[in-house]
């Protein structure tokens, strides 16, 4: 006669000697390393994304009479990549042979330095990115056509000594706004990408801290 599943379950666990409780060892060490590893993976992925995007954009700009903007954006993105790669090298120097608390604290400190530095740079590179893009448009074939259409007869009044003052003024105001809010935009950008890792890091630090006390 076949045994019922209820019998198999009950009898199985009655005689089972393998209900061994796993040891709760090294949990926080593993979690700390896991968070840092995840951050590293995302960081490398985003770096490559910037490189690939800038190369593709350069190729696109070449074939679409937009080369000036393509070169500017390529240079800007790759400068950012270079700076951040140098910062990233210091992350690999963090000592892993310390307690989870020390390890995660040193990672947190590294992160704060990295974020502070990028936040400062953001006040420059967001407006620069905007200016690069607009200048690229300005000097592109299509852009020139639009400009001739807008600033040609009978719109010459917008030109002062041949300079499209209102155009430049508008661009300057927007670039200025990017310069003012660059840091905030960077933080928003950062949290959209790495927010879940930061939340986990915060949670983990709180846990370890609570344990320490």
């Amino acid at each position: 006669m076949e045994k019922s599943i209820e019998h198999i379950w009950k009898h199985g666990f009655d005689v089972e000697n393998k209900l061994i409780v796993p040891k709760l060892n090294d949990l926080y060490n593993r979690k700390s390393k896991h968070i840092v590893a995840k951050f590293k993976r995302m960081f490398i992925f985003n770096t490559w994304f910037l490189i690939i995007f800038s190369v593709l954009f350069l190729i696109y700009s070449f074939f679409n009479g937009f080369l000036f903007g393509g070169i500017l954006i390529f240079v800007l993105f790759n400068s950012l990549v270079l700076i951040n790669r140098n910062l990233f090298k210091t992350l690999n120097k963090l000592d892993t042979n310390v307690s989870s608390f020390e390890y995660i604290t040193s990672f947190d400190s590294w992160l704060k330095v990295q974020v502070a530095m990028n936040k400062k740079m953001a006040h420059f590179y967001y407006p620069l990115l905007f200016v690069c893009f607009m200048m690229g448009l300005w000097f592109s074939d299509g852009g020139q056509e639009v400009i001739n259409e807008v600033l040609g007869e009978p719109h010459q009044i917008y030109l002062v000594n041949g300079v499209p003052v209102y155009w430049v003024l508008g661009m300057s105001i927007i670039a200025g706004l990017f310069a003012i809010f660059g840091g905030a935009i960077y933080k928003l950008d950062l949290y959209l990408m790495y927010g879940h890792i930061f939340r986990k890091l915060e949670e983990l630090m709180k846990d370890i801290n609570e344990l320490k006390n």
Partner: protein
Amino acid sequence: MSNDFYTLKILPYAGIIIKICRAYTDSQEDFEDYYQEVCLQIWRSREQFRGDSKWSTWIYRLSLNICLTFIKKKQKNKQHVNADNKMIADTIDNYAFSDESLNLLYDAIKKLSEIDRAVILLYLEEKSQKEIAEIIGTSPNNIGVRVNRIKERLKKLLDGKIN
């Protein structure tokens, strides 16, 4: 997590956690990860327990939720699982129960959907329909029907394998 909390509030219910975690994992390594995560989450959520239900019910609910969340994450990262197949094969011997019928039953349970696994585990743990419904977050009315359907499916899966 403090030792006192673990010893007094989790360890007496470790059997529950082990049974649930084993239904959602295929290797000793995964099982230990799930077990540790469940313990950690129980500790983190300890202040949310208001005593509306039994502590054991609370543990069932948390364990199932965590396992279901983990398994979803794992499905997302399925490509990594293939790479780990060798490791799973290496550890599977240590992972099996000594009771062969129990192994077969677990294998059959793992073939069910995630929610059906939760329902049958709670049923086998002799939880009432009301408690199962409360833990799963569904109406008690359809639990009985669902349990019968799952049992039928398990019988088919085990057909001829257990005497």
